[in-house]
């Protein structure tokens, strides 16, 4: 199949993907796109279809219906070739515990037809394992194994990195390490990343875009900006003259207001700086002005509730 020229710079397009296991529909008409240079958080409850979708993209699971277009290729031969530009970590890293970190990477490199010891050292340094490169992987901590798993996924200089639960079981410092590594891979190396995780707070700090899946359906795809707007539910303001502030707000067309416990809550879609400007213009001193937002977790739970 010919390369598809595309204006949106989507490197991965999933179209109407379906997959059943026995009587259970694991994926039901799943469609989404992944654009170059972004970090996607792939969110869903257990059994939502995240891993099934990832397994289909990586070729582990044959698809029944729908198409996967990777780097413009969607036929089986083209897809296999396109996967050479992709790095994956699905479920847990595929490691030989009897071998050292470096030996594992050298073997993975051989799979791509290369044998470059210097490159392996560079990748090990990149994931912070240069000091333990000659240690047997069987002695590694979970965090070290996860980082080595990411190193394995980087061995072919991928343009797209697909990571299934890369922070599973990591301690908070381990999570921070992996997050910082992924952000730097995207920013410095221009690698597009798709990360699935249950830890929504972690994904919120990492991702630039979100794909939310539930019961085999994509229920929302949105950017971080859109998510922030959706989560920005109201502004809370405290002033020295709340009654006067309420009157000014009302007279300026702000209708959804609430005043209690010494604070004014504004539910209209207004920017905090506009509210501050309005109070400044009327010489009212603001003692507190905050934007109260839902977290990604709260938004996700609400979305699931709505879907149900």
């Amino acid at each position, binding site marked *: 199949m010919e390369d598809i020229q595309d204006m949106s710079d989507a490197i991965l397009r999933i179209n109407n993907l379906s997959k059943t296991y026995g009587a259970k529909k694991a994926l039901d008409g799943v469609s989404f796109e992944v654009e170059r240079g972004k970090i996607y958080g792939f969110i869903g409850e257990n059994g939502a279809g995240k891993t099934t979708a990832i397994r289909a993209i990586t070729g*582990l699971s*044959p698809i029944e219906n729908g198409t996967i277009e990777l780097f413009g290729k969607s036929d089986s031969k083209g897809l296999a070739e396109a996967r050479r530009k992709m790095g994956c970590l699905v479920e847990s890293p595929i490691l030989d515990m009897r071998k050292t970190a470096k030996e594992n990477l050298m073997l993975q490199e051989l*799979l791509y037809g290369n044998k470059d010891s210097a490159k392996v050292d560079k990748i090990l340094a990149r994931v912070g394992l240069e000091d333990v490169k000659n240690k047997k992987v069987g002695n590694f901590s979970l965090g070290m194994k996860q980082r080595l798993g990411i190193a394995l996924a980087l061995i072919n200089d991928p343009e797209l990195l697909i990571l299934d639960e890369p922070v599973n079981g990591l301690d908070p410092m381990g999570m921070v390490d992996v997050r910082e590594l992924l952000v730097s891979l995207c920013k410095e190396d221009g690698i597009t990343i798709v990360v699935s995780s249950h830890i929504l707070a972690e994904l919120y700090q990492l991702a630039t875009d979100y794909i939310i899946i539930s019961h085999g359906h994509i229920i929302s795809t949105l950017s971080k900006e859109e998510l922030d707007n959706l989560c920005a539910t109201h502004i809370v303001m405290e002033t020295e003259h709340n009654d006067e502030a309420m009157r000014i707000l009302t007279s300026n067309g702000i209708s959804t207001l609430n005043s209690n416990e010494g604070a004014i809550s504004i539910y209209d879609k207004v920017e905090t700086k506009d509210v501050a400007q309005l109070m400044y213009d009327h010489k009212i001193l603001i003692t507190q002005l905050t934007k109260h937002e839902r977290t990604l977790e709260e938004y996700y739970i609400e979305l699931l509730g709505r879907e149900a």
Partner: protein
Amino acid sequence: MGSLFKWEMKQTFSSKAFWILGASIISLPVVLLVLTLIFSEGMTGYNAFLEGLNNYNAFVIFLIGVFAGIHVTGAFEARKIQSSVMAGNSRFNILMAKFLSYITAVGIYSVVAIVISSVISFTMQGINGFDDSFARAIIVRSLVYIFVEIAYSATCFLSSMLVRHLGGAIGLNMGLMLMSNIAVQLLFNFDWMIKYLNYIPAAQTMVLLGDISNENIARALVSSVVACALVVALSYLKFRREELK
């Protein structure tokens, strides 16, 4: 395909199973041959050579299934096959690389075992006892025998592709090899079966010990190639759309 094969061979040569089972498959028939030669009298070099081939086949029946299970089913369990799928290799190339690495390992075992057995046979008993030329009776027969052993052992490759549990695969392989050998020996008692048995590698491991005619060499080679092709085709049918855990 080339890099996949190199990757497979690198893993094969670095696996303990390859060396431990290889050492057993090679040394046990040799030890048995030496014991036979020590305790038997008047055996010619040629008969000792045939005894060596027969001993090798006997141990292959018991041990090659273990190697096949570890090499094939073990690779699925260790998610090595999954790793090569994710690295963008076609399933056909992955299967071919796996199959070629398997038959290469079996080929190495066969060559080393048969060469050692032959050297011991002719050193201890002398180069005597054959009517045909040395080249035909020994060299051609050995080469065809190795080919037939590879084809016979390929059966275990297929059965290992069908089972996704290492213990189960080893058990199935050993049972299959043992049962097929016993079945062939029993079926040789029926004259009408012999012409059909000659087209089965399991039977050719016995037929070749006595019949080195051009016709039988052709039958052995063709049936071995067909058997290997069948193993690859049936394995691919199973693997091409298999869900990989």
